[in-house]
């Protein structure tokens, strides 16, 4: 246990190298800076996939290492998206309103601009006033703070309540799922201030960057997502390699024993839960400006289960496993449900991938759980063992 994180954990240097090569390759092939072989929309898909990998990394920390099967981490992801989305939407709408009002005979007052912005944003839910939760939406700095603070605070309060009363295992999963459902139902209401089921839209227009085309913005976001993922990977590898990592793995394997050894198990769990909640918030804040729209459907409980499934397919308890699982499943899902996959003609029966992919995916989860509990990461073990043999 000495040396830097790069020598202690071989996967870190490999991962960072691969990520850097990917970033260079995407840049070289992009429309904004390179040959143009990759379309803007595909660049965005890649950038979004990196954000999902980041969320999966967080999920792996909390589940694979600490043994808490949270079905609420995609809610934190969505909250991060909502926090940045409020700023993007406010700033963008305000620009449009200013442009419209500049034609007026009398120059508009600040009050008129704020009121007109609010009525433009909220007319879709029949309101004209700013709800309280938009108070920070006119400041980028504050919104960036909220991206981390709001999911973090929710995770902290929820985790404190749950861990304090020793809700563990299956019960905790159900409770986190209930939290996710409550949050999405809350957001679905038109009168709670986040535009109900309309969600926030037009998030791909970054205020201040109107002159920069989407071709370059998409690359910038790709770089941002890759940077966040790389840093989080190094941080996570550092966390799980030291004493802290041993303790949380101990909690995963036998919580009672770690408690009897004198460790404050609740504090460790609460820290991991909150920290990963913040990570998911950051991932969401990077994801939704690329997706362009966020609505409460994104937060539905099923999304959080998918997150767990990605980690399970990639291989729990190994950081690269989570990333591989998330990237593989989400990219394949995009491919098969995007309608671009050729239908498979079996003579009697034609398999339409858009329809049959979910069936295949579902049965895939079952098979992976039954026969490959280590997930795709288990393949890496096989390769390494073959090398050594």
């Amino acid at each position, binding site marked *: 246990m000495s040396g830097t994180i790069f020598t202690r954990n071989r996967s870190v240097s490999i991962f960072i190298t691969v990520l850097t090569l990917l970033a260079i390759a995407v840049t070289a092939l992009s429309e904004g800076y390179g040959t143009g072989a990759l379309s803007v929309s595909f660049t965005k898909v890649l950038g979004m996939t990196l954000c999902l990998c980041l969320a999966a990394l967080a999920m792996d920390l909390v589940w694979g290492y600490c043994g808490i099967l949270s079905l609420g981490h995609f809610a934190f992801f969505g909250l991060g998206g909502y926090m940045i989305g409020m700023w993007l939407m406010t700033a963008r709408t305000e620009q449009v309103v200013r442009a419209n009002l500049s034609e007026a005979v009398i120059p508009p007052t600040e009050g008129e601009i704020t009121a007109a912005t609010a009525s433009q944003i909220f007319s879709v839910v029949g309101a004209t006033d700013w709800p309280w939760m938009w108070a920070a939406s006119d400041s980028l700095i504050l919104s960036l703070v909220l991206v981390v603070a709001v999911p973090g605070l929710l995770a902290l309060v929820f985790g404190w309540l749950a861990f304090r009363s020793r809700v563990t295992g299956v019960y905790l999963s159900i409770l986190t799922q209930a939290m996710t459902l409550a949050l999405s139902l*809350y957001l679905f209401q038109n009168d709670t201030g986040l535009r109900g089921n309309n969600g926030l839209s037009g998030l791909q227009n970054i205020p201040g960057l109107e002159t920069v085309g989407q071709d370059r913005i998409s690359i910038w976001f790709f770089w941002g997502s890759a940077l966040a993922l790389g840093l989080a990977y190094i941080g996570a590898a550092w966390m799980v390699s030291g004493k802290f990592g041993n303790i949380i793995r101990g909690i995963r394997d036998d919580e009672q024993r770690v408690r009897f050894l004198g460790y404050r198990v609740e504090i460790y769990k609460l820290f991991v839960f909150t920290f990963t909640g913040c990570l998911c918030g950051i991932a969401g804040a990077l994801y939704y400006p690329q997706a362009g729209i966020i609505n409460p459907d994104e937060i539905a409980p099923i999304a959080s289960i998918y997150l767990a499934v990605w980690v399970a397919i990639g291989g729990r308890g190994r950081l690269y496993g989570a990333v591989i699982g998330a990237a593989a499943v989400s990219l394949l899902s995009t491919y098969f449900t995007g309608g671009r996959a050729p239908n498979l003609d079996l003579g009697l029966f034609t398999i339409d991938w858009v329809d049959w992919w*979910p069936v295949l995916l579902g049965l895939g989860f079952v098979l992976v759980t039954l026969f490959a509990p280590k997930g795709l990461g288990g393949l890496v073990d096989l390769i390494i063992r073959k090398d050594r043999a």
Partner: protein
Amino acid sequence: MIRVFLAALLALCLATAPAPRATAQDAAMGPLQALVQSRADLVADASRRSVGEVLEILIASELPGVPGFLARWQARELYQRQSDGLFVYVQDADATPLTLIDIDTGAVIGTATSREVAQLRPNRGVQTVIGSALVAFQLAAEDPADRLAALAAIDSAPEDIHLALVQDLIAVETDADVLALAEVLLPRLVIAFDRDDADRIAAIESLAGNVSLSARATLNPLLATTTGVATALPEGENIARVLNPGTDIDRDAAYAMLVAQGLAPPLVSRAEQRDILAANVIEGRVAGLPVAQLGTDDARDTAYAALVAQGLAAPAPTAAQIDESLAAHVFFETYREASQAVTDAASATLGGIDTRVAWFRALDLSLDGLSLASIYFLAAIGLAITFGVMGVINMAHGEFIMIGAYTGYVVQTLVPDYTLSIAIAIPLAFAVTFAGGVAMERLVIRWLYHRPLETLLATFGMSIALQQIVRQIFGTQARPLTPPDWLAGSVAINDVVSISSIRIAIFLLGVVFFVALWLTLNRTRLGLEVRAVTQNPKMAASMGINPDRINMLTFGLGSGIAGIAGVAIGLFAQVVPDLGANYIVQSFMTVVVGGVGNIFGTLIGAGMIGGLQKFIEWLNPTNTLAAQTYMILFVILFIQVRPRGIIALRGRAAGD
């Protein structure tokens, strides 16, 4: 060819030949026709105001044809011949040519094309007046059904003249149903139309404690108020209350009333101020101030004040002036009803009724809560076995509910009789989902008993696969699962409390399930073995119980019950592929709140969650989503207090 031509020619001649002329002066004109002709212009061009005169004459004549005439007139089935102004009926309004019928004798008097007669189209107001006149005839009809219909017509559109008619009817009526309806109707008519306040107050007091909608609809208009403003309280009006600006009435609204009455100068809103400024821009300046500087409220106020000083704009009232105007006037509500004794009696009676209604509402709410609880119980009871007793997290539980509902749908497409099809569907749904549950247990779950969290993932995989397969087979649109007629209605205790039969059936089904399951688990050999395997599989195995077989049967039982629940839920919810997904989180919460491993717990959990959700909905009736949100938050907090649920297993049985 020639014959065809001749036939056509003949037809043409017949069509264009003048209809046999029977002028209004014919001696054969019947007494009704003569009477109607005497007011021909009032009949042909009736207005709400003028029609009363015609009706009086007609009713006074006591001619036998009058009721029929009025009914036809009201139904727009009366025609007037253009040539001589004769009023006629026609045999078939769509036939060409029209066959004309005499209004007195009913005899055919000729034909006419639709151009030669004018259909009389009394407007809605006239129709109503004719209708209420017709009522008098109907009330005298032989058939009680006709008299009931007449009373119903009065009920929907009461008129002044009906009061005496209903009073007369009650004096002579013998049929019990008619009498009952008339006696319900009488207070309403007395209150609305009687001229003696004492009678009206007596009628109001006779309604005390009557929670029916019609009683409340009778009393509420008496207490209708209008808001008014004046410098002093007006004399001789029935004042409901005096409104104090700022507490009883919004200050802005109060001032707006003053402005509307011309009692105070209008406010100048920011938008109006801006428009006035914009209208006074001269060479890029407003009252000497450059336009570019007008981007703040202060600058605009200055510019506006300058415009006022130049006489170009009306001065806006200051805050002090507004206060002064508000203080100088009195705002009040007056009853539309002039008599204070009547309004006092009405508000006292209505107050008593409202209290009773509140009690009945509470009862209705409890029934609603009970019904929702029984739905949650049905959805969760299967889970109480698979999750509660066996500890398997079955995310595909909702899909078993959905499959049960689709089984019911398929049976209904094959068996058209709804009662029979439900009777077939229930055991069949149990069989299908029992088999599905056993297959799933054998293929997937038994490999994962020592890894409970992974069961969650594997069964979630099953859940999305099953949902998608059903979507492939049945499509995404909702399929109907129609309840038999005897389940379609609802049981109404009064106008406040009613409950649909299907919910009663679901409640009964829940009770049956609970009893059957409790007996199975506690009184049968299978139940004993299930409990043994749950508590200690190894010990049970050494006692000669086959844990594999018991696990398989238990899981099958839980799934089968979900299938039956699916049939019941499908009867009132839409049968769609994600039917079950909507219930899964609530079902898990029900089981967890109630306490795992115990069907009593599930019962109490369902009761608590269902009751609570209805209660929150009652606090905020417009928003069921909010009710669900707060209910879930409550459950999360509740778990903090009792992490093992309401009924927690203690000791070794609790395991961990």
